[in-house]
C-alpha cells in the first residue's frame, strides 16, 4: 500500500515557506518525516528535522524510501531524478507549473527506477488516522475534522475536492482508507487507472470515489480498463465542469483531435464510465447513493 507509516519520508525543498508549514502539519499528524534537503543549506533544521545538501547524504544516515518534492518548477526534474537514484519508492511532487516535457522525462526515469510518482501539482495523499504527505487537508485541525479512517478511497484531480469529498463522507459517518490528489496536470505520474490497480490489491479498501474534470483522457482510460477487466472495487465517479462542454472551444490544429479521439468532454467521460458499469453521480451529494451504505 502507498504510504507505509513506518517508511521514512524526506522533503526536498524543506526550507521553503510552504514546505516548512507542510512539515509542521505532517509531523503533528504523525507522518514519519526523517530529513529534508535544500542544496546549500545542509546543517540547518526545520521544525527539528535535519536538513542536508543532497538526497545521497540523507540516505547515508537515515532510512528513507518516500520523497516529497516542493521545489521551484525548473528544479523539479533534477530533484526527482535525485530521489530515484537514491532508491525512493514513492515520490510525491507538489510543485505546480512543471513543464510537461519534464513530467514525461521524469516518468520514464521513474518507471526504470521502480518508483511510483504522484503529481506534479498534487496537494498530497493521506491515510486517515495514520499519516499524510503534502498539504492535503490544510492545517492539522482541519485534517482531523475532514478525514476519518474507513474503507473508501478517494482519488481526485483537484486537491481541494479531495478534502471536500472526504469531509462529506466523514459527515455521513463513512471513513476513508486513503485519499489521493492525483494532480491537476494533463500528464501525471499516476493516473486513475494506475491507482485503481494499486487499490485493487489493498484489502483495506472496498470502494473508490473518483473526482474528474474536463480535458485529458484519464476517465476514458479508466473506463476502457474496467470494460476489459472489471474491478472488485465499487467505483463511483463525480465529474465537474459540465458547463465547459457548452463553451465554444477554439480549435487549433488536428493533433489533439487525432490523439484524444474526441475524448475530454464531460459528456463523453460520463458516457464512457457508465458503459463500463461505473456509478456516475448527477450532483455532488448523489455520489453517496452509489456507495450504497448511506448512513
Amino acid at each position: 500500500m502507498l504510504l507505509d507509516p513506518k517508511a521514512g519520508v524526506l522533503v526536498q525543498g524543506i526550507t521553503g515557506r510552504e514546505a516548512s508549514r507542510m512539515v509542521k502539519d505532517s509531523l503533528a499528524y504523525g507522518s514519519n518525516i526523517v530529513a529534508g534537503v535544500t542544496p546549500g543549506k545542509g546543517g540547518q533544521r526545520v521544525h527539528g528535522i535535519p536538513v542536508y545538501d543532497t538526497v545521497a547524504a540523507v540516505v547515508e544516515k537515515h532510512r528513507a524510501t518516500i520523497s516529497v518534492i516542493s521545489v521551484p518548477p525548473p528544479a523539479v526534474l533534477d530533484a526527482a531524478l535525485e530521489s530515484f537514484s537514491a532508491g525512493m519508492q514513492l515520490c510525491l511532487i507538489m510543485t505546480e507549473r512543471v513543464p510537461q516535457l519534464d513530467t514525461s522525462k521524469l516518468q520514464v526515469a521513474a518507471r526504470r527506477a521502480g518508483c511510483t510518482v504522484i503529481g506534479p501539482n498534487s496537494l498530497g495523499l493521506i491515510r486517515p488516522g495514520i499519516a499524510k504527505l503534502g498539504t492535503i487537508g490544510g492545517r492539522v485541525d482541519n485534517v482531523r475534522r475532514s478525514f476519518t479512517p474507513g474503507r473508501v478511497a478517494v482519488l481526485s484531480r483537484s486537491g481541494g475536492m479531495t478534502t471536500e469529498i472526504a469531509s462529506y463522507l466523514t459527515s455521513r459517518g463513512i471513513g476513508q482508507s486513503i485519499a489521493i490528489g492525483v494532480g491537476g496536470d494533463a500528464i501525471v505520474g499516476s493516473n486513475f487507472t494506475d491507482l485503481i490497480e494499486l487499490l485493487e490489491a489493498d484489502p483495506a479498501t472496498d470502494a473508490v470515489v473518483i473526482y474528474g474534470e474536463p480535458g485529458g483522457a484519464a476517465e476514458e482510460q479508466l473506463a476502457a480498463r474496467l470494460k476489459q477487466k472489471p474491478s472488485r472495487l465499487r467505483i463511483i465517479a463525480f465529474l465537474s465542469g459540465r458547463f465547459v462542454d457548452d463553451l465554444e472551444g477554439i480549435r487549433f490544429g488536428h493533433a489533439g483531435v487525432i490523439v484524444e479521439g474526441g475524448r475530454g468532454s464531460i459528456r463523453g467521460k460520463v458516457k464512457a464510465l457508465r458503459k463500463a458499469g461505473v456509478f456516475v453521480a448527477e450532483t455532488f451529494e448523489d455520489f453517496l447513493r452509489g456507495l450504497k451504505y448511506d448512513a
Partner: protein
Amino acid sequence: MRLLEHQSKKLLSSFGLVFTESISVNSMAEVRAAVEHVGLPTVLKAQTPFGGRGNIGAVKFAESADQAVIAAEALLGMDVRGTTVEVISIEPKLTYDCEFYVGITWDTVAKLPVALLSLAGGVEVESAQSDRLARQSFNPWTGLAPYKAREMAAESGLTGKTLVGVGEVLTKLSQAFLACDGITMEINPLVVTKDGVLIGLDARVEIEDEAVYRQQERLGLLGELTMTATGRPPTPLELEAQRIDETDHRGVAGRVVEFDGDLALLIGGGGASLTVFDAIKEHGGAPANYCEVGGNPTEEKVAAITSLLLSKPGVRGMAVIMNVVNNTRADVIARGILMGVKAAGRKPAETISLFRVPGNWGREAREIMEAAGVEVYGREMSLDAAARLAVERNRTHAS
C-alpha cells in the same frame, strides 16, 4: 502559447524544415513588392491563431497583382473571432501531386510525446481511416529515432525518396518539439512538388505556457507573440477584473469569465468552482460570472471585485462559496464583501444570496455578517446544498 503561421514556420525552419517562400506584410504599401518577389499565382493568408481559415475566407488566391491587392485589402484588418488581422503572408501558389499530414503532440495516457503521419493531408486528416494513420510514441529523453520515423513512412505505404524525405521531416519535427517545449507542432499539408521535393505549406506550433520561461531566446526572434489565443477576446468586465487582481499581488480575486446570468459568483478552489458552477445551473440558476478567489486577497481587492460583479446589469445577488480547505481568512472575505456591496449601493441582506466560507477566522466572519443580517454557513453545508440555496434566495432579490 500559440504562434502564428509565419512564426511557426520561422521557428521550424531553424530545425532544417523547409517551407514555401513567404513574405509577411502588415500594410498595403508592401503588397505589390511582395507579390512581385514571390511570383504569380499567389496565396494570401491572414495570420490568425485559429484553425479552419479556409472556411471563413481568411485564405485567398490571386492570379494577378491587381487581384492580390484586392485580396490583401479584404484580409488586412479583417475580424476573425473578435481579433483583428494585422499581418498577412504572401506566398507562391504551388502545384503538387500529393499532400500529407505530419504532427507531434502529447499522448497523456502513455505520458509520452507521439508522432503522427497521415497520407491524407489538408482538412481530410481527422476523418482519415485510422489504418491510414501511423502513430509512434517516443522517449522524451532520446527523441524519435530516424529509423522509427522511416518505419512510420513505410507503414503508411510510402516508398523511395518520399519515404526517406518524410522520415527526415518527422525526425526534425520531433527534435523541434522537444527542444522548444511543444504542446502541438504540425505541418499540414506537407506536399510533394512536381519535381519530387517535400515542402511544407502551412504549420502550427503551440508552445507550453509553463515552459515559456526557458524558451525566451527562441521566442524573442519571432516578433510580437499572440498571448491570448484561446476563446473569445476578454470583455470589458473581465479586463477590469484582471486589472483589480493586478493592483495587489496578495491572493487571487479576479480571474473572471463573464456569462449571461443574474447570480454573481465568488468561488474558492478550482475543483469547487467547477462543482458549484455546475450545481447552480443544475438547480435552475444562471451564473453571471465565474470568479475564483484564493490565497489571501486584501479586503480592498475583494471589495473592488464584489462591487464590479454587482455592477453588471441584471445581476440580482451574489453567492460566496469556498471549499473546506481554503486557507483564506473568512473574516477578511466577509469585510471585503460588505465593503463592495455598500460601494455598489446595495444592502447586504438583499444582495448576498449565500455565504459559505469554512476557512480560518470563521467566528469573526459569522459575527460580521450576522450584524449585517446575512447568515454564514460552514462545512456542514455541502457545495450542492449551498448552490441550491443560493439559487432559491437569489430569485427573491431585485435586479
